[in-house]
């Protein structure tokens, strides 16, 4: 996944450590997540059939995943029939090679991009740059991130960790490097900053010959692609260039045109808390005289079929990238998006990234633990992904190992490092519960020595007990008390 930026990420607790001590970041995040959380609740309350829409969205996506092979073939046929060309990429490298080749074939050395999680996931910008092609991000937040030589930290609002003052400074300092400089005396009002972005990017839009996009949905029946956005940068990238290259994960399919009626109601309300986002574009292959005359669709796997093979974890592929789960998550609110070490931060990232990439790295093995399991993410998810269920499932995989699918093949995972104490404790518990005599002796010994028990644990348990009170041992084990009192009957006499 994602090029060089996330390689060698430390585990989530280490990465989050710095973030939780950064007051500006915590303030920015708290303000942003609380704002959108309240707005979203209002937007959802406006529709009386939310529960039914959510259920339908879940069922449509599940049905699609259960028959994904058939729908992929159907999509390929309908896109091709509409004048597009379909390419298949098994992993990030292959997808990057295909896109690079397609751009080079146009003879161009720059492309305009509409924000796309899939191209971030595969590190497309870096791959293009290595081949001498400049990729310009045109979503305002993505522009802020790109100019700030930063990484996105939120699915919907990638620059959520920046406040207006920081954005002003980035624009004033960096815009001239990339094209039209920021105007003199730029202030930090959002309207002025948006205007600066408009002027800066317009010259790029007007000359662009190649556009690169993702897609929110692909309709198998008709070959239609859908992009949902607000600013109009999407429309610019999808309309003005001569060549359009869309890079889309294979899970983004819906079977039929009518199915969009569910998601076009749930996605805007869940993501930006609007009845409808300002702009939605749909296109089916190419159209005579309107828009790009060459259209390429690059379908990427990159770990999705491995995720699909896991019967518990596959529900993560229902995700429509609305980001509602990020905005309600108490862990995300404090740790920020960067700590997740992935383009998919927050609760969905905590289950998606370790499945797409496998749980072998330090960061991926730690992500299933980046949660309090409070369940708020499940409540707000418009396609009802049971994120806590998948988190627990992945924790089990990290600790116990077991059979998983990687790159299409079944492999047996060893238990991850760093959980030795946990496993030893569980093994000891299993043995003790299977030997009642030993358990009784142990409990009595613990009760009699209770005055000498330490307040914190030694060794690997030290960090755990630093922030938690250890349970106190009663003066008499429960089983002795029961024996003595016949379950409290004596006491009532």
């Amino acid at each position, binding site marked *: 996944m994602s090029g060089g930026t996330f390689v060698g990420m430390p585990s989530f607790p280490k990465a989050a450590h710095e973030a939780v001590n950064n007051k500006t970041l915590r303030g920015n995040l708290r*303000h*942003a997540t609380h704002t959108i959380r309240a707005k979203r609740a209002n937007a959802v309350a406006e529709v*009386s*059939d939310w529960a*039914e829409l959510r*259920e*339908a969205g879940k*069922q*449509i996506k599940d049905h699609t*995943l*259960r028959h*994904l*092979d058939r729908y992929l*073939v159907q999509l390929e046929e309908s896109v091709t029939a509409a004048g597009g060309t379909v390419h*298949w990429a*098994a992993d990030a490298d292959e997808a990057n090679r295909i896109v690079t080749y397609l751009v080079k074939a146009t003879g161009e050395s720059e492309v305009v991009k509409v924000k796309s999680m899939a191209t971030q996931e595969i590190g497309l910008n870096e791959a293009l740059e290595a081949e001498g092609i400049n990729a310009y991000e045109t*979503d*305002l937040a993505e522009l802020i991130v790109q100019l700030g030589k930063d990484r996105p930290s939120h699915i919907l*609002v990638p*620059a959520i960790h920046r406040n*207006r003052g920081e954005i002003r400074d980035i624009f004033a300092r960096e815009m001239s490097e990339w094209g039209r400089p920021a105007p003199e005396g730029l202030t930090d009002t*959002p309207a002025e900053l*948006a*205007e600066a972005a*408009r002027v800066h990017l*317009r010259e790029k*839009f*007007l000359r662009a010959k190649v556009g690169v996009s993702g897609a929110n949905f692909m*309709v198998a029946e008709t070959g239609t692609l859908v992009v949902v956005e*607000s*600013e*109009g*940068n999407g*429309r610019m990238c*999808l*309309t*003005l260039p001569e060549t359009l290259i869309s890079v889309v994960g294979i899970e983004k399919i819906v079977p*039929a*045109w*009518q199915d969009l009626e569910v998601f076009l*109601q749930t996605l805007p309300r869940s993501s930006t808390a*609007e*009845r*409808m986002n*300002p*702009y*939605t*574009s*749909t*296109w*089916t292959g190419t159209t005579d*005289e*309107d*828009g790009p005359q060459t259209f390429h669709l690059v*379908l990427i*796997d990159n770990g999705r*079929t491995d995720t*699909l*093979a896991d019967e518990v974890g596959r529900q993560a592929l229902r995700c429509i990238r609305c980001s509602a789960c990020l905005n309600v998550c108490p862990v995300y609110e404090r740790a920020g998006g960067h700590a997740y070490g992935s383009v998919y931060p927050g609760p969905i990232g905590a289950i998606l990234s370790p499945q797409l990439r496998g749980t072998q790295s330090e960061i991926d093995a730690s992500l299933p633990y980046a949660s309090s399991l409070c369940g708020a993410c499940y409540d707000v998810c418009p396609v009802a992904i049971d994120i806590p269920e998948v988190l627990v499932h992945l924790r089990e995989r990290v600790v116990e190992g077991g059979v998983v*699918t990687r790159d299409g093949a079944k492999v047996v995972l060893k238990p991850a490092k760093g959980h030795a104490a946990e496993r030893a404790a569980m093994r000891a518990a299993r043995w003790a519960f299977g030997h009642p005599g030993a358990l009784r002796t142990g409990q009595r010994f613990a009760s009699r020595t209770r005055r000498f028990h330490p307040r914190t644990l030694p060794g690997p348990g030290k960090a755990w007990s630093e922030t938690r009170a250890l349970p106190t041992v009663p003066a008499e084990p429960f089983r002795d008390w029961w024996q003595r009192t016949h379950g409290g009957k004596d006491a009532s006499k």
Partner: protein
Amino acid sequence: MSSRDLILARVRRAIADVPRDDTPYDQAFERGYLREHGDRSVEQTVDLLAENLADYRARVHRCDADGLAETIARLLAERGSTSVVTPTGLDPEWLAAADVTRVPDRLDSTPAELDRVDSVVTACAVAIAETGTIVLDGGPDQGRRRITLVPDHHICVVRVPGQVVSSVPQGLERLDPARPLTWISGPSATSDIELDRVEGVHGPRTLEVVLVSGE
């Protein structure tokens, strides 16, 4: 093995647990949600459209067919527009009262030329009341997607009540997926800076919707 075959083979292995006679599409899920929200008269539906458009900062105007040319002329004059791009199939009567240079939507015009035009006037394909959305489908009276994108001022004429539906499901039913569609709900906007909504980034910063009755 090609990547296509590789991916399809992986998908098939991954879903080997799915029974062959799994429920087909048309029985796979309940569409238990509503076809429209609430019970409104035709007039109320048009009012809701106007209200929701305005809520997302579109400027809404109403007139009858006889007053349309004058309304459009007034809006262009108020804006100080001197040039207007027009789709090839736009009713010429609509601009009859306006003192502006008409720039026809030409195939060989460049985006830069379009950028120098003040306004665009189009019709629409359908309007959705519950979400405050107008949809363009590239029909002759709407033109290519680019003409409603590059100019900073868009006047869109909606015939009421004929072109108005209540809900997203009803809107989709009326649209042809083979055509390139643009759904517009208010002017271009961003909430990327501290989630403060700002109208106007790359698309038209001013959207005026004229609800014209009696056509």
